């Protein structure tokens, strides 16, 4: 099982609704991770403003921060390898890392699997 670690820039909130505009990237990634967690995928997201220790402990992240400053964020590390610098993974990438289907990473299609237990 893939081990995914995402190192965010300092964010007010993980969905990004507090910025001057809504960043659909942030809401997308927040949702995708939310759904990955529910599927039991080993995925963690660290916010610079509340979890700086994680940024220091992961030497690869610390090195990137020294080279590129905050532009390096977000950094995505999958199974110990840096996969993304300065941008979030697409749902395709998340799907290929985890072996899940792309459809499982966005809103569930309610017309399918519409089994109600009554």
């Amino acid at each position: 099982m893939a081990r995914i670690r995402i190192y965010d820039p300092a964010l007010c909130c993980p969905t990004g609704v507090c910025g001057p505009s809504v960043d659909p990237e942030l809401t997308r990634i927040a949702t995708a991770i939310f759904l990955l967690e529910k599927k039991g995928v080993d995925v963690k997201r660290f916010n610079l403003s509340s979890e700086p220790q994680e940024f220091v402990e992961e030497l690869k992240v610390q090195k990137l921060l020294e080279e590129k400053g905050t532009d390096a964020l977000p950094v995505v590390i999958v199974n110990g390898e840096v996969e993304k610098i300065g941008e979030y993974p697409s749902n395709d990438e998340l799907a290929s890392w985890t072996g899940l289907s792309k459809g499982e990473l966005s809103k569930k299609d309610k017309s399918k699997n519409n089994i109600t237990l009554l």
Partner: protein
Amino acid sequence: MIKMYPTFSIDSMELTPYLFFSGKGGVGKTSTASATAVGLADLGKKVLIVSTDPASNLQDVFRMDIPPTITPVPTVPGLDAVNLDPEAAAAAYREKLVGPYRDKLPQPVVAQMEEQLSGACTVEIAAFDEFANLLTKEKVTQGYDHIIFDTAPTGHTLRLLQLPSAWTNFLEDNTHGASCLGPLSGLAEKKTLYEATVEALSNKDRTTLMLVTRPDQGALAEGERAARELSDIGIKNQVVIMNGIFEVNSAVDDDIADSIYTKQQQVLKDMSEYMRSQAIYQLPYVPFPLTGIDSLRKFFTWRSEGLGPDYAEDISFLPQVLPGLQAIKEDLMEKSQGVIMTLGKGGVGKTTVATALALSLAKAGKKVHLTTTDPAAHIDQVLKDEHISEFLTVSRIDPTRETAAYREEVLSTSEKELDEEAMAFLEEDLNSPCTEEIAIFRAFAEVVDQANDQFVIIDTAPTGHTLLLLDASQSFSKEVERSSGEVPDSVKKLLPRLRNPEETNVIIVTLPEATPVLEASRLQTDLQRAEMSPSWWVINQSFAATKTTHPVLRARAIEERIWIKQIVDVEAEEAVLIPYMKEELIGSEKLLKLVMEGDNNAN
């Protein structure tokens, strides 16, 4: 019919061990809390007065330095005081988080962390943390009969603490949830502490909420909002203190005194059912400043009866000649476009000043757009004058509607992508108080963007913090470029425009009284941090600029001179003075008179 309530008196009331004084700036919250503390100590009780207000003037009231450790007040046996500074606590919290990483992470990275940890809620939560610590420390509380707080937690803080997600967020360390709880994060043992605090607050045998307000519409509306909010959260033991009830002196014939009296009585008559149903006590409008122990001891027993016209000496009121509002108008007449913002705390008249300036510029043939956030701005009446309406357009920023629209926008763009659980999670983030600030900020940016071929006059502004958050460590433009969300053009242009004194005039409005001047000064500092500098101070509703003969008002006028001098000498680049107006300033004719009045010559 004359509205009278029993006078607030500590002898005749059963007071609980904890007394929280709540109310907006300038209503006399700290004075009332301090006078209560002194009164109880004089009755032989052991009393502690606590301030958690970052703008606390407890040291002015007691005329002594009040440190963040419990200190006896030497002139009042039995009374101790402590000044807890939540801003310092928030800064300490920030440093605790950021400090260890100064050497470990590059400087710009550290700067980004600090910027995100400087929110207003950080301070508010830190304040709550301070008094939770105090309230639940038995070793401290046992020694006192009464502990008096000159501030109260807001409903928002209490609600936040009751969100189960607030706790699961930090206790389980997942990535969801409201981020305003920063100062509490990671401290699992605090859960019990806060629960105990909220419980103490809702226990009517232990805690009374003293809602201090004044007989004016704004203060009453604010008081009612706080009363309802805190009652909803379980703090139902509330008492209303109606401060500043003015009594007419039958020995003096003075139309200004009559007008104050009439206005107050009208406001009390129109008071909402909700407020009427509260236990209300009154305190008089006193002619002396409530600083120093002697004044505090007089406060609850002072009566205006029998004051002769010689109570306050006949003196020349004004320290110097100050121009009226028309000086600002004349300055602005040299331009034909730009942003004009009137700033100040609620109740000082920033909407009135904004509207009067808008009308006078429009009347002089300038194109003006006026925007107000004040629901009571009587915009319709302003527009009745046809000659003016040719040049004047008006709009309103409604915070509730803007926030709802922003929520709607966010939710509808995400709806396609998210399932129900994820939507619930996004909605929770949208409940954070930043949402309202951002929503208003966007509406504000859009209005300011219209200032290209006309004046835009607006009676609100984002806080320095919001501007700084966007700007800190020069990240604003970078953030704008990087964000893949569509940043409106109006937002991109906003900050450079607000900082340019050629394009933007910031006008600070205040009253010539202690708390409003101190608050205005803090506003100015906040703006200066964001590199905006106010060009004018408007001193509104000055009795010193009238010819009142009422002894109480004359005494007030003499007192005003200290604050007017402070503004002219220390605070303001340029200052104007508006006399107290007898009439309600509704309708364009009356508002225009505000700008037409001549210089306020000393007389």
